[in-house]
């Protein structure tokens, strides 16, 4: 961090503007006409019942899926092949068959970080997620919680402007979940925009600044976290919070 020059392009990635976004598979409109803007700052948490289209929306934003129609507009458009300024953490972390630290340096290499800086930056990231002592362990034999922390370290080392998280704690126990949440909080504090999908309403309450409630492929409601849980504006959101909608 210290002696390094900030080589980030001066133009911020954010805000991210989605215009009339749709994702259709056969007859199903998985994403149905979504137009929103996500700005720098608040942690945006996307909640909603199963099949609402949350994960698909996240993948479209991150560029892993192409929308059927509509526009994903970043303030500073990404250049194909150039280092990415956004990262994503998935529900099930994918680790390469190499050591924990090598998984991080691999990501740094792809991002064009000079060879000499990679090890230091990777070690720093591992320390921040509490995995420094496991740096040389094979990544795939780490526990589920450790692998997810490693996935966060890999993302953090890249110093992304935006971090997408797709139910990062869905398959973890409460202890591991707590650790993941602390790391996400710290990343947010270090200036990374957080966009997270979660099934866990407690987590949405703990980590979110604003809630985007999805239902049937649409954003049914968008509100500050306190207001959303106190007095949801839409009947679907009220039902969802009551636990009447499946999630």
């Amino acid at each position: 961090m210290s002696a390094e020059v900030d080589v980030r392009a001066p133009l911020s990635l954010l805000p991210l503007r989605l215009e009339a976004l749709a994702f259709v598979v056969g007859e199903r409109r998985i994403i149905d006409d979504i137009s929103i803007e996500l700005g720098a700052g608040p942690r945006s948490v996307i909640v909603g019942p199963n099949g609402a289209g949350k994960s698909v929306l996240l993948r479209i934003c991150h560029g892993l899926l192409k929308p059927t129609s509509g526009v994903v507009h970043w303030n500073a458009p990404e250049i194909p092949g150039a280092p990415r300024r956004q990262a994503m953490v998935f529900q099930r972390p994918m680790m390469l068959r190499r050591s924990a630290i090598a998984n991080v340096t691999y990501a740094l290499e792809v991002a064009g970080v000079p060879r000499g800086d990679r090890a230091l930056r990777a070690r720093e990231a591992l320390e921040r997620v509490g995995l420094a002592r496991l740096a040389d362990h094979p990544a795939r034999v780490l526990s589920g919680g450790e692998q997810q922390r490693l996935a966060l370290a890999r993302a953090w080392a890249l110093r992304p402007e935006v971090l997408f998280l797709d139910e990062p704690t869905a398959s973890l126990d409460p202890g591991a979940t707590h650790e993941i949440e602390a790391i996400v909080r710290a990343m947010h504090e270090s200036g990374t925009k957080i966009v997270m999908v979660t099934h866990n309403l407690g987590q949405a309450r703990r980590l979110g600044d604003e809630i985007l409630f999805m239902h049937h492929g649409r954003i049914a409601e968008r509100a500050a976290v306190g207001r959303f849980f106190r007095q949801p504006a839409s009947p679907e959101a009220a039902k969802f919070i009551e636990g009447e909608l499946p999630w």
Partner: protein
Amino acid sequence: MTGIAAAAHEAVGLVRGGDPELIRIVSLSLRVSLSAVAIAAAVGLPLGAAIAVSRFAGRKTVIVVLNALLGLPSVVVGLLVYLLLSRAGPLGAFGILFTPSAMVVAQTVLTLPLVAALSRQVIEDAWAEYREQLQSLGVQNARAALTLLWDLRYSLVTIVLAAFGRAVAEVGAVMIVGGNIDGVTRVMTTAIALETSKGDLPLALGLGFVLLAIVLAMNSAAQLLKESAQRRYG
């Protein structure tokens, strides 16, 4: 029965005594098949990886053809390579028919589809698991193929060893393009075929033992390598 026992006894003697003819035949076999498999791996693995991670028109057809070539009869390969390399053939100018080089060419043609088809399958299965994460990191297809080749190296070694097993054990292709010339192109399988028909069972059996031992050793090595890698890397 006693004839077989006597032949087996004599065969063991040949192997243990390091019979020069036996050694010459075995070493030519190894040289030819290892060279062929090295070329097949150098071309087939990247080819398999490239097909696995890329999308192009006619991809399905390529895969079907590649898989069909897995069952390619070695005599047919021998015949095709023979036609290519014979004096009147398109590659006749090289003049390598009935030399070990021709045998390397034939076994390369025989094992290349095997390496490419099986590695394509293994890599494509892994790609389903790796794709989103690698694309998220901004990994382009060429680098993804290399990453997968390295990450799956232990599974791929097994494929290469299987290809070697096929090469060293086949008789049809090397017989046709090599001609089984004593001291020049005689390998284990062609020698076994010849000695058996001549009735020289000890040499045939001795070579059979060696061939079996090589194939067995290769497969155990592959198995051990894969297991230890799985324990270490998960």
